[in-house]
């Protein structure tokens, strides 16, 4: 233990020392500023980047002075810069009496947002994030022009969270596109976006988005503090951020929500949640996340309330089936045969007669086989994927039964469980049920329903002890909140969901105005025009 901690301490110290030395080098006053001599500046940039070949230097002449534009090929918009050189610089005649730096600035205005920098540290920030830097000989300043324009993936249909009536756009890998997708839905000045950079090496752009006045200030502050605390070299996906800011690592359940659908994120923002956007990740993280939220699908709100309630109840039921299906079967067939109706019991017993394994082993083999097939199907190239599913269907279905390895009932149980598992709208919740299912199966095979019940109680205690950014995870259920019930098992009609969930948003709670219940025109004069709202 002490060796390990010593080693860790030393490592940390070493890392700190390295950082410190680099920092010291940068801190020296002569290293901090841009020099007047353009050759020295270029030499230094080349040196610090190790002569990387995607770094482009384009020399030009402005009046009597030499100048250089520096940008990274692929990150900056090549077309734009070339046009600029062709039209503006090459055929310009300037009076040498003028301040040439000002002239250059005036000319670059056409390219985009510009600013003057004098600090050496800003030089790298500038062109490494896609901007172009203009140096002019004799001036200890540089012009930083925003020319970001790399290859972007177009906005496509969401692939993991599908909806029937919802919008068809989904987030992409570019943070700017993502913020625009959200802002297009919420045209309010209160939608605030706070930028941040995380990752000592990757310098990934992070955006914290929330609606001022609806979001709980304390949660916003907590999110910022947790993000600021992060000290890591790289952030390659929002999954990194998720794992670094969640309340508890030792849990099987997701305590942050992520979505690739802008409409989901917009609706969460409107409920007072905080969204965390990470550049280069098409999934936006929202917090706080509550247990019941993982069973709400966007379609619940786009179709009428009776239908969406029924479907949501079905979804919760199928989560339970996915959770305890195989273990119920094991418990009933090994311990509590008397609870199965006689004719059914005879049918099951007749099928199981030739099977050489106890129910638990049988179920375990089948479940593991299915999990392997599913994982393989996910990773395989699309052309081969179909072959795997055919083989899988034959192996875990027909052939296994005919060979007498498993009983047909078991195949039915496993397939129902598998299908039920897919009906959970969010993958991170579905996978936790998949894992816990195996533990419950073991418990059920040891002590039948008693073991199963104790296992479920254990999980319940765990769920009730979880928190997401300080909000109890099982919130509208335990601690029970009567007002929160409008969107739990029963999705109330839109006009009846009068308030935002009190436990998440603070302050401005009213969601709908008075008298929003639609009705036919004959009922009253003041409702004549509201019939189209439902």
């Amino acid at each position, binding site marked *: 233990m002490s060796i390990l901690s010593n080693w860790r301490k030393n490592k940390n110290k070493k890392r700190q020392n390295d950082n410190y030395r680099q920092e010291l080098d940068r801190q020296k006053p002569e290293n901090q500023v841009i020099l007047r001599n353009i050759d020295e500046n270029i030499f230094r940039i080349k040196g610090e980047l190790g002569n990387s070949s995607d770094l482009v230097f384009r020399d030009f002449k402005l009046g009597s002075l030499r100048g250089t534009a520096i940008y990274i090929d692929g990150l900056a918009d090549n077309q734009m810069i070339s046009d600029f050189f062709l039209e503006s610089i090459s055929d310009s005649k300037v009076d040498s009496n003028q301040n040439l730096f000002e002239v250059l600035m005036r000319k670059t205005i056409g390219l985009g947002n510009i600013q003057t920098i004098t600090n050496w540290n800003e030089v790298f920030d500038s062109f490494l994030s896609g901007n172009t830097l203009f140096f002019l000989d004799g001036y200890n300043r540089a012009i930083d022009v925003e020319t970001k324009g790399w290859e972007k993936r177009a906005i496509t249909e969401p692939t993991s969270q599908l909806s029937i009536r919802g919008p068809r756009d989904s987030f992409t890998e570019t943070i700017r596109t993502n913020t625009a997708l959200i802002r297009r839905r919420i045209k309010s000045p209160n939608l605030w976006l706070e930028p941040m950079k995380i990752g000592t090496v990757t310098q990934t752009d992070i955006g914290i988005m929330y609606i001022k006045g609806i979001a709980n200030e304390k949660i916003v502050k907590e999110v910022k503090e947790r993000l600021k605390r992060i000290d890591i070299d790289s952030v390659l996906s929002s999954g990194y951020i998720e794992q670094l800011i969640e309340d508890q690592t030792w849990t099987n359940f997701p305590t942050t929500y992520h979505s690739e659908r802008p409409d989901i994120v917009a609706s969460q923002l409107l409920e007072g949640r905080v969204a965390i956007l990470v550049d280069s990740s098409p999934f936006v993280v929202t917090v706080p996340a509550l247990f019941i939220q993982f069973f709400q699908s966007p379609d619940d709100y786009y179709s009428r309330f009776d239908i969406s309630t029924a479907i949501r109840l079905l979804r919760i039921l199928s989560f339970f089936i996915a959770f305890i299906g195989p273990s119920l079967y094991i418990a009933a067939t090994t*311990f*509590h045969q*008397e*609870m199965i*109706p006689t004719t059914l019991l005879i049918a099951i017993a007749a099928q199981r007669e030739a099977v050489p394994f106890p129910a638990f082993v049988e179920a375990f083999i089948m479940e593991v086989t299915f999990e392997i097939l599913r994982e393989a199907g996910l990773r395989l190239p699309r052309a081969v994927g179909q072959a795997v599913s055919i083989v899988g269907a034959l192996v875990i279905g027909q052939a296994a039964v005919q060979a007498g390895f498993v009983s047909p009932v078991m195949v039915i149980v496993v397939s129902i469980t598998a299908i039920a598992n897919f009906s959970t709208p969010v993958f991170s919740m579905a996978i936790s049920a998949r894992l816990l299912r195996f533990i419950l199966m073991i418990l059920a095979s040891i*002590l*039948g*329903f*008693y*073991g199963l*019940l*104790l296992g479920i*109680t*254990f999980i*319940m*205690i*765990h769920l*009730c*002890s979880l928190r997401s950014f300080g909000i*109890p995870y*099982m919130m509208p*259920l*335990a*601690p*029970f909140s009567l007002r929160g019930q409008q969107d739990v098992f029963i999705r109330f009609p839109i006009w009846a969901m009068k308030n935002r969930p009190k436990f998440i948003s603070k302050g401005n709670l009213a969601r709908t105005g008075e008298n929003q219940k639609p009705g036919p025109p004959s009922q009253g004069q003041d409702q004549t025009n509201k019939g189209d709202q439902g």
Partner: protein
Amino acid sequence: MENAKINGSQLFVLIVLFEMGSAILFNLGGEAKQDAWIAILLGLLGGILLFLIYYRLYKFFPDLPLTSYAQKIMGKWIGKIIGFLYIIYFLYIAARVLRDFGALLVSAIYTTTPLFVINTLMMLTIFYAIHKGIEVIARVGQFYIMVIYLLAIVGFILIISSGEIHWGNLLPIYENGWKPIFKAVIGQTLTFPFGEMIVCTMLLPFVNDQKKAKWACLGGMILAGINITITVIINISVLGVIPLSRSSFPLLNTIGRIEIAEFIERLDVFFMIYLVIAGFFKVTIFYYAAVAGSADLFQLKNQRIITYPIGLLILIASLTIAESYSEHVVEGLKYAPYFIHWPMQIILPIILLIIAFIRYNKKGSSPSGEQGNQGNQGN
């Protein structure tokens, strides 16, 4: 003591689950035969009076559990002994309930599984709950009470539609006069389950709203009392008095009578779900009271230190408390009420209350002032 707070409705839920607990499983008030339900209602009345005694004590010291204010009322050493006795008492009942529950499972369903395994697994789950604290226990309670009510309603509808209810079994009322009824009240229903509200003296300091605490407890007791009464009435009217007196677990037999369309039958699962949930909460609350009491008595900053040893004590006690199930039942029905429950639930609290009245009311000083002074002396 733990620095946690629960609200009024959470306390209500805990009291309902705790009071219904194992009482529903047994032949409660069996001495009064078909009048058992009257004995239960009278027991409820007596229980409410007892609760008012505990509540009055709580009003003297709203922030302190029983183990602390016993020291304030009786002086440091006698108070400490009383507090210690109560901790032992909570431990004892927790062990009794665990044994009840384990024995029930062993004799009804898991006939070949050792009692040790059943009790140990239950204790592990409870240990986890205690480890997470009273807030989490209360939240789990809020969740499980919905499950229990769902089961109860479905079971009720099923038993009625099975056509097994014979109201005639309840007649004649007062067949043998009031004597057996009173005997059942004093010997059983007053102390079990209603007198067990003594445990709320340990829970009330955790409630964040003092005004709601009283009504949460009273409401919880009354609701639980009504539920137990309904269950007993159904048991009597389904099984009849004489088979009932012979049955160890009448509710299991009653559920066994459900049969609809030759498909919905043998709903023992319902019974088992209830059993596990009720047993879990009853043991958990006594266990928690014992842990909180010891943390308070021995002034431990972190009560988690003693959670594990006390849990182990309860587990061992539950296995060694009696040689056999019948010995356990006889102890529980004949001796425990008079020699253990009466002194701990009724006599000691009354003595404490009388002395508290004499000490604090005659001087005309407010108990809170006294409390502050004594607290300083103690330090």
